[in-house]
């Protein structure tokens, strides 16, 4: 099959026979891709269809979409979960996510600038340490961090969930930005240096604007990660009115999951919508960012 991939310059005289030779390969390619697509999309389509089914018909039925769709699963959500409105969870999640994005953009870009653009003693050692934290299991830090935040009376606040974002602990984004800044043309900041610009000017007026793609990628990934985060809120938040969407959904599962299965399915879909919207709007940035992370690893 891969013969076709390199077949860019065949003699044009034999177009028709080349076409006939290539056709089975193309057909197999598209069939293969479509089969994978069907498997990939099935759970999402199942979720969409299920949210319009009666509770009893969701798990057992093989129909993707019900013959008689109902919307009561959605209208029922206006009752909230355990007397708390769904919108509370959304407001909490959005606040946390936006707060995280701001923190990551500021702290990681400053750190990345130092790694990429300033020469100083100890830089390589610090860079190695930073890459090392990329591989460190979060669970080693979980308990002592919890103990400290608990002693500082910060349980049930968003501080434990946000502080790390403002202190550049997400090494992945520092790394992503360092990679990007290193590839910027050096002439620009060197010319600025000769003109007497300090590092902060260069960072703010030259490097940051040029780094927009990396900043956008980091912002979207941060938003999505914060939105999906489960372990952090599970440990640090225990008053339901502080819950994020993920925790609210888990509470739904524990309290009403059996009685109101349809509502739970509808809520699951609603909880996914922001991530899906971000994906549809920014998929190019996400995929490019992901692709860059693996090169020169």
């Amino acid at each position, binding site marked *: 099959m*891969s013969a076709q*991939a*390199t077949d860019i310059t065949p003699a044009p005289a034999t177009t028709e026979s080349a076409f006939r030779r290539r056709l089975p390969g193309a057909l197999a*390619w*598209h069939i293969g*891709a479509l089969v*994978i697509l069907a498997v*990939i999309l*099935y*759970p*999402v389509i*199942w979720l969409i269809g*299920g949210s319009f089914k009666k509770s009893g018909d969701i*798990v*057992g039925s*093989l129909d993707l979409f019900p013959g008689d769709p109902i919307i009561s699963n959605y209208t029922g959500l206006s009752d909230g979960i355990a007397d708390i409105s769904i919108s509370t969870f959304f407001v909490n999640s959005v606040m946390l996510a936006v707060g995280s994005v701001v923190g990551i953009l*500021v*702290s990681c870009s*400053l750190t990345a600038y*130092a790694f990429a653009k*300033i020469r*100083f003693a100890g*830089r390589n050692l*610090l860079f190695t340490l*930073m890459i090392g934290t990329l*591989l460190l*299991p979060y*669970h*080693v*830090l979980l*308990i*002592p961090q*919890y*103990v400290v935040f*608990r002693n500082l009376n910060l349980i049930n606040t968003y501080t434990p969930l946000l502080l790390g974002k*403002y*202190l550049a*602990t997400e090494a992945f984004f520092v790394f992503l930005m360092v*990679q990007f800044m290193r590839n910027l043309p050096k002439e620009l900041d060197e010319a600025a240096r000769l003109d007497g610009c300090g590092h902060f000017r260069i960072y703010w007026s030259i490097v940051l604007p040029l780094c927009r793609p990396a900043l956008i990628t980091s912002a979207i990934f941060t938003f*999505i990660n914060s939105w*999906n985060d*489960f*372990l952090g809120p599970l*440990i640090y938040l225990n008053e339901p009115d502080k819950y994020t969407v993920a925790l609210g*959904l888990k509470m739904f*599962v*524990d309290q009403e999951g059996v009685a109101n299965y349809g509502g739970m*399915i509808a809520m*699951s879909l609603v*909880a*996914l919508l922001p*991530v*899906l919207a971000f994906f549809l709007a920014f998929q190019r940035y996400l995929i*490019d960012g*992901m*692709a*860059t992370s*693996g*090169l020169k*690893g």
Partner: protein
Amino acid sequence: MGTTVTHAPAMEGLSKDSEPRHGPVNSPRPAALKRRGRRETLAGYLFMSPWIAGFLLLTAGPMIASLYFAFTDYNLFDAPKWIGLDNFSEMFGDPRWRHSVKVTMWYVVVGTPLKLLLALGVALLLAQKRRGQAFYRAAFYAPSLIGASVSVAIVWKAIFADDAIVDRTQKVFGFDVGGWTGDPNMIIYSLVALTVWQFGAPMVIFLAGLKQVPRELYEAAEVDGAGTWRRFWNITLPMISPVLFFNVLLETIHSFQIFSSAYIVGGGAGGNACGPADGSMVYTCYLYVQGFENSRMGLASAMAWMLLVAVALVTAVLFWSQKRWVHYEEGAR
């Protein structure tokens, strides 16, 4: 963004000219340069101060604290009491802990290779220039973004339940073993399926690597009469081995740390924290149970350090093996 190879030799030459600190032989005014160097160092540390604070307060400090807790009996309310190696001997003697290790190993050993094989296979498919290629790439990547969410875990629990789609499909093929999520031995494979479903992220990285393999190599090989398989084995695989290494390393490390999906698909809080008969009791689930449900912070810290040791060992073995199978091109680093 995709053009990571472009920090080119031309610029390195330029930087050598403009930064005299490289060659101290002819430097005209060492005192001024030294002053400038000190200013640069100050600026460097100033810019990095958030990261340094974060590293000390949220990474290095907690690591040391957790190492200390690992040798204590600590329930959050009384001060930690030094008990030497008791946590470790309790851990190794605990059948539930050994079970969680076994479950996690199965998850890592089955899930990671399957996921990476699928990612590489589909990347090879998508590397061909064809109509719809970009669409497929985006669609296949999407599960990686939502796979860790509570919503998808709920869907997973449902489609792998008794009488749901997976159960009925396997019945058609004569496997009447019931739903996976209700079966202590099968539930872990529903989680394997969940991680394999997210093959898109490593696939995108493979694709980026495949794009950088020089076309001429294939053309030369074709002239020499090398078939598809030989071209893959002798050109593609060595050329993308750095990317393969990166994917193996990251996916393995991440797999060891699976938590939320196991916790939610397995049922979550209450008596059975992770699955029927602990079927999806992965390592971090048990760590959570011991630390946050049983308030055994010392024991949980010891467990966390064992996880760190395991991850460090795997990382070390992978880096050691790198010499044998990872090919870095001259100057590509």
